[in-house]
């Protein structure tokens, strides 16, 4: 068997895990909170990420962060830092770690952990005020990748 076909066979074996996404509990953070490996096998799409970032029903990142290029977002919040130029100041690995679970980078950060499903106190069933039945991450693996791709475009 040629080397190429071995690699192909291995890839095929690994496919079930890759096809979905890295599960929230399986994300590997380094000591500084960076995440090197993408959470999904489809590269992040900046345009989709921009939508996740700006939409109240998705990431709603604009509740706390402003980005001056998002001219159609009224009343961006000021609880978190402004993110102009964040793509120049932070690597993709850093951005992925912060969006997935900011507390791994900034201890005690107010920022919610967007890709974590355990360790909460009285988690609710979305915004009903009732107890959670099953906790799903605030954003999907692909949405995280999309937001990271959008943030990476913010060079100045």
């Amino acid at each position, binding site marked *: 068997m040629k080397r190429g076909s071995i690699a192909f066979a291995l890839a095929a074996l690994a496919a079930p895990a890759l096809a979905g996404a890295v599960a929230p509990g399986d994300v590997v953070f380094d000591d500084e909170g960076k995440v090197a490996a993408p959470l999904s096998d489809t590269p992040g799409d900046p345009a989709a990420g921009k939508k996740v970032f700006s939409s109240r029903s998705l990431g709603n990142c604009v509740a706390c962060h402003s980005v001056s290029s998002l001219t159609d977002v009224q009343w*961006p919040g000021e609880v978190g830092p402004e993110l102009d130029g964040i793509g120049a100041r932070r690597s993709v690995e850093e951005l992925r770690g912060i969006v997935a679970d900011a507390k791994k980078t900034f201890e005690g950060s107010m920022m919610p952990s967007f890709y974590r499903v355990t360790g909460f*106190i*009285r*988690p609710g069933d979305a915004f009903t005020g009732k107890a959670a039945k099953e906790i799903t991450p605030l954003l999907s693996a692909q949405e995280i990748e999309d937001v990271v791709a959008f943030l990476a475009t913010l060079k100045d």
Partner: protein
Amino acid sequence: MGRKALSLIAAAAFAIAAGAASADEDAELVVEGQEIVTKLESPEGNPLPVILSGWRFREDATQALQTDDFENPSFLEIDAARELWTKVEGKAGKSCADCHGDVEETMKGVRAHMPKWNEKAGEVWSLENYVNDCRVNRMEADAWTWEKNPMIGMTALIGLQSRGMPMEVDVSGPAEEWFERGKEMYYTRFGQLELACANCHEDHWGDMIRADHLSQGQVNGFPTYRLRNTKLVSLHDRFKGCIRDTRGETFSPGSAEFRALELYVAWRGQGLGIETPSVRQ
């Protein structure tokens, strides 16, 4: 010129000075000619650098609504509660007035010291507990639901009798344990968003969270008329809404947890004038 006209002119002058639609944190609150303390130096031990009523964080038009009882939409419910005050209900054939007389006399100052330790119950009681205790045990009538009318209107009517008086809760003695429980809750990061009261109301008051101007979360104005809800809202209902908004499992209005939190948060605003019924966004 009457006092009301003067206070309206004063409110209008503040509005002009502040510019359109922005919060004026330097405005002074005068309601029906009565000055109400909305800002005070923080006493030792209080974690806030300065104590500010939520009124200071609101837009000019919202601020102005509270200065005139004819404009303040809370008074529809308060007038209904005034009718109820003298209405006989329950098997004992009594009304509130049969025991308590004129609400304007006997209820003066009551709300300013709420919640407080109740020796007989061995608990900290909110004003609603006292109302329901009267209804069930003296009037032999049904208890009212905390976060609905007529309870909200009645607590607003009673609270109004303390308007302008400094909020002064007693956190000593047996209430201290409740105070500590409330404090612990205040700093607990609830829900999937992991937000504590302190994240917004201690660390970020004055900042915008989207279109909301974060206040210190003071409780001196409750029940408060919330324009977005177009109704009077009880304090525990607001607590519930805040915890729900953390994507959390809330506590119930009237629960021991919320009474403990009420005591602690009231202490954080010790000295602010009672504004009941306040108007907020």
